[in-house]
């Protein structure tokens, strides 16, 4: 910053003028203020955040192996509280014992193993092969009517719902196993399936075009009994097994 000093010609001592100017331009003395500390407690935590008192769960890789088999289940066994595998196993047994399946008797190791096997896979394996062993029949009149009524596209997905009652005298797991095998070996075109263990249902998805063929297959090859429903997303049930049985 430049400072210009204008003075009258009659002032002789320029040195004095310079001194006066310097003195006037000196910085104001700064008084250091004390840091403000509030006397009331309410503002003391203003800049401190809040957090949940409870700590998040600790999941070590050691427990992960044991946990994997249970991750499939909807009712999950609490793992993180257990410091070692023995405690985890005990917790797992306790959990099963309190579930509806374990009410009548104690769980032994064999049952636990069966249980873990049982819950291994819920989705069918999909094969990219499109070859089908049997030829696909044209639609029946009833099924054609259903397609017309609901305005379905041939490539729209629909699902057959197989309940536990339909599987009798076989178990739903046996039916699921045979169905998975059939899908894996491309016997059911455009088909994939999902075992809903919590609902005790098998959902068999396929294109509308193949639905009737798949319905016949399910009825005859998997020896289903009773009525199975065909459902389409948003529309609900549009067709059932009783129609098929009249074909």
């Amino acid at each position, binding site marked *: 910053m430049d400072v210009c000093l204008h003075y009258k010609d009659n002032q002789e001592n320029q040195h004095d003028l310079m001194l006066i100017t310097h003195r006037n331009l000196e910085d104001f003395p700064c008084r250091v203020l004390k840091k403000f500390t509030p006397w009331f407690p309410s503002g003391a935590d203003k800049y401190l955040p809040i957090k949940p008192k409870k700590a*998040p769960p600790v*999941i070590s*890789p050691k427990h992960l192996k044991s946990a994997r088999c249970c991750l499939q289940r909807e009712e999950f066994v609490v793992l993180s509280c257990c410091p070692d595998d023995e405690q985890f196993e005990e917790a797992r047994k306790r959990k099963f014992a309190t579930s509806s399946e374990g009410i009548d008797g104690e769980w032994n190791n064999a049952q636990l193993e069966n249980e873990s096997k049982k819950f291994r896979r819920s989705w069918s394996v999909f094969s990219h092969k499109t070859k089908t062993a049997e030829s696909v029949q044209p639609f029946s009149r009833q099924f054609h009517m259903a397609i017309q009524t609901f305005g379905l596209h041939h490539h729209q997905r629909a699902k057959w719902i197989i309940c536990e009652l339909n599987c009798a005298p076989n178990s739903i797991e046996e039916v699921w196993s045979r169905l998975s095998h059939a899908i894996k070996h491309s016997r059911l075109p455009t088909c994939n399936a999902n075992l809903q263990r919590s609902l005790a249902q098998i959902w068999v998805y396929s294109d509308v075009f193949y639905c009737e063929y798949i319905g016949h297959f399910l009825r005859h090859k998997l020896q289903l009994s009773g009525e199975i429903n065909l459902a389409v997303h948003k529309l609900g049930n549009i067709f059932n097994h009783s129609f098929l049985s009249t074909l």
Partner: protein
Amino acid sequence: MTTLTRQDLNFGQVVADILCEFLEVAIHLILYVREVYPSGIFQKRKKYNVPVQMSCHPELNQYIQDTLHCVKPLIEKNEAEKVVVVIMDKEHHPVERFVFEISQPPLLSISSETLLSHLEQLLRAVILKISVCDAVLDNNPPGCTFTVLVYTREAATRNMEKVQVIKDFPWIVADEQEVLMQEPRLIPLKTMTSDIVKVQ
């Protein structure tokens, strides 16, 4: 175009719903990317039309849900300033902080056709940034854990009652030790500004 103000009935609720949903996705992804939990408990899901990782460990999921459930009323009332995911080492010293600064405009311009798709694009961009943030961050020490800190606009103690939504999920004021980092380095990830919320 409809213009709503903060006083309108659902404004805060809409923002809180959107933000909490986003924060849930972000927390899961941070825990995966920064390897706070073993990768085996995560599964790939799709959110905002991009792949994200989500924990399938019920206890952890419940913890995150409970946390956000408690934070929601604060966001609804525009009282939450920052939500911070802190990754801490074994000694509970913070090693990383993912800071989500939230500010909401006083006026809201809603064009329902464009709002959600635009907002989704913005949130997607933030999520994508988080998913690649490990490229600019150092590896964390083993045995890290995490916590969620919520900075409020007013003194924390005044908001304690508002967050105690869940009976078994109490909240406390964080220790200074958990808040302060030694020699912090700031890495900006993404700023997003939408009609209803600004996050950076």
